[in-house]
């Protein structure tokens, strides 16, 4: 009996203690919005550089910011640029924002009997999420979608229950297009939702909408595509109904590409331009400008260099838009700031 126990203990230690590779682990946490492409990047980079392992936990942009502030991760990721107060809170280093890709937040829905693509206007989206439009058979929805047979059912609204950059982008857009939303709710990673069910992560929202008839939720484009879920087009600033795609998201970033601020914190929701998708966003990796561990620093900087060049090629395959060239050039200069 005693020998068995000792052998068992030895076995566990043997598995646990690093034996073969001296691979260092870089810990990161943050947004679920770019989750799929970050996963792909880290896997690809690991195959090319077996001694670098990035453990990315998609716990939401709020989590990324919180854990970076607490110092429990090496870098964070967020769809919401950090606010001045949040940056000031971190005394150990200054946070550098590195945009990684562009993506779009789409209204995805699951409505009985409705198979095709729906058109949404800022008014209908704000109305639904404010709880003022409560049924799918509402006149406003019918007006924008003539010919669609809506059921006379209640709308089940789904939103995020965790601190989310996707929420920030959605609420930032609604704040820009609906004064009522701006006054009543505002924008942020965690907000006081007037109505709806809360689900965890982009995946949770997609899952909830997929399983609940007559529901609507907001997710990053890839989550709707990968789950074969219907998503609608949104009326943009120029008045055209635009569906999220590589081109329309890139079009939204056109203005920002030319006039990117030095710290890369910019919002591109409700962008001008006929072909621009109005709920688009950059997403950022939040990198400390002082990384004491020399190995980690080199590895992170090398990864970022790879991400800005080779990595960008993966974006289109997962329905994210690659960064515009002027932005990439500016970021490469920012790399030098990491000491």
């Amino acid at each position: 009996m005693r020998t068995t126990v000792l052998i068992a203990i030895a076995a566990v230690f043997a598995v646990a203690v690093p034996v073969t590779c001296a691979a260092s682990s870089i810990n990161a946490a943050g947004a679920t919005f770019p989750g799929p492409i970050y996963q792909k990047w880290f896997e690809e980079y690991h195959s090319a550089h077996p001694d670098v392992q990035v453990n990315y936990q998609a716990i939401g942009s709020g989590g990324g910011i919180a854990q970076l502030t607490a110092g429990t991760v090496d870098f964070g990721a967020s769809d919401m640029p950090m606010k001045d107060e949040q940056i000031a809170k971190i005394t150990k280093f200054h946070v550098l924002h590195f945009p990684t890709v562009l993506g779009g937040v789409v209204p995805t829905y699951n409505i009985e009997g409705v198979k095709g693509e729906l058109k949404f206007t800022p008014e209908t989206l704000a109305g639904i999420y404010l709880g003022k439009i409560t049924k799918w058979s509402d006149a406003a929805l019918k007006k924008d979608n003539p010919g669609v047979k809506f059921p006379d059912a209640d709308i089940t609204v789904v939103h995020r229950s965790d601190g989310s950059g996707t929420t920030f982008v959605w609420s930032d857009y609604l704040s820009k297009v609906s004064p009522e939303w701006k006054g009543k709710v505002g924008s942020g990673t965690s907000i006081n939702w007037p109505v709806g069910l809360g689900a965890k992560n982009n995946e949770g929202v997609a899952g909830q909408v997929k399983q609940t008839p007559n529901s609507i939720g907001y997710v990053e484009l890839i989550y709707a595509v990968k789950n074969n879920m219907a998503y609608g087009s949104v009326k943009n600033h120029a008045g055209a109904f635009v569906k999220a795609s590589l081109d329309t998201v890139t079009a939204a970033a056109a203005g920002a590409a030319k006039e990117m601020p030095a710290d890369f914190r910019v919002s591109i929701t409700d962008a001008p331009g006929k072909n621009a998708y109005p709920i688009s966003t950059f997403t950022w990796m939040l990198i400390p400008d002082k990384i004491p561990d020399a190995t980690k620093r080199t590895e992170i900087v090398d990864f970022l260099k790879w991400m800005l060049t080779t990595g960008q090629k993966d974006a289109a395959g997962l329905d994210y838009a690659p960064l515009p060239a002027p932005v990439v050039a500016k970021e490469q200069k920012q790399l030098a700031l990491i000491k």
Partner: protein
Amino acid sequence: MATMAPSVPVRARTSFRNVRGGDQIAYLITFLFAASILLVTVLLIFELWVKSKLAIHQFGFSFLWTSTWDPVEGQFGALPFIYGTIVTSILGLLISVPLGVGAAIYLSELAPPRVSNALTFLVELLAAVPSVVFGLLAIFALVPAMRLYVQPALIRAFGWSPFFKGPAYGVGVLTASMVLAIMMFPYIISISREALMQVPREQREAALALGATRWEATWDAVVPFARLGIVGSVFLSLARALGETMAVTMVIGNDPRIASSILAPGYTIAAVIANEFSEATSDIHQSALVALGLVLFMITIILNGLGQLLLVLTAKPGTAK
């Protein structure tokens, strides 16, 4: 060492001064281990207190009855979560107590011993099922059933009352209560059964001798005797249900709103801490969550204490009140 009269075998308790040499060291070592339990519990209370001070300082007691939960504005109130926690647990009790006490009565009074032991074994195994597994089953088996059959039926039958209003989401307060009820079964059944089995045989036999039916003997003579134990089991199950996290957050809808309808989504203290703790970006948000944890901690301590007290009282023979 003290020597005892042989007719009352009480074990000697060694006090520190009476032991010698090696025993002293043994005493010290074992004492240290035991004291570490005290230390860690004190640490727990201390940490909860310190980390929630910010929120308590800012909101005061009104934290307990404010119903806004607005991270953007920095306004936090515990009421929706206290409400959700209490309502789901009480609803769960309403479902599980009749079933559980009924089962306990059957198992202790009416079933043949082999059957009783086998069924009790099965029920007690239910207590070993992890919360997340309950949640998994709830999401894929219970929620669709609620959404497609149970909730629409309830709305058709009782939709005129404010308690059954609203669309059939599938998830919601009622669904969470049902999951909690299933999780409470083993505790209610096992403890009530023990309490019932401790009732002296004479009670039942006296009632039967007076011409009572088996049911009357059980319900009127035996059960009242075990009343304290049964109530104790209720308190203990309630304390457990209040702290349930995973199964609840998977089916309650995670909406910090106080609605009168039990078909509406809700939120509990444990669920909101699980969802928002690692993402609370502002100090006040995090402090509010810890304050919620402190509230939950205090409620469960009181309930557990009451439950244990009641069980201790039943253990004393001859207490019929």
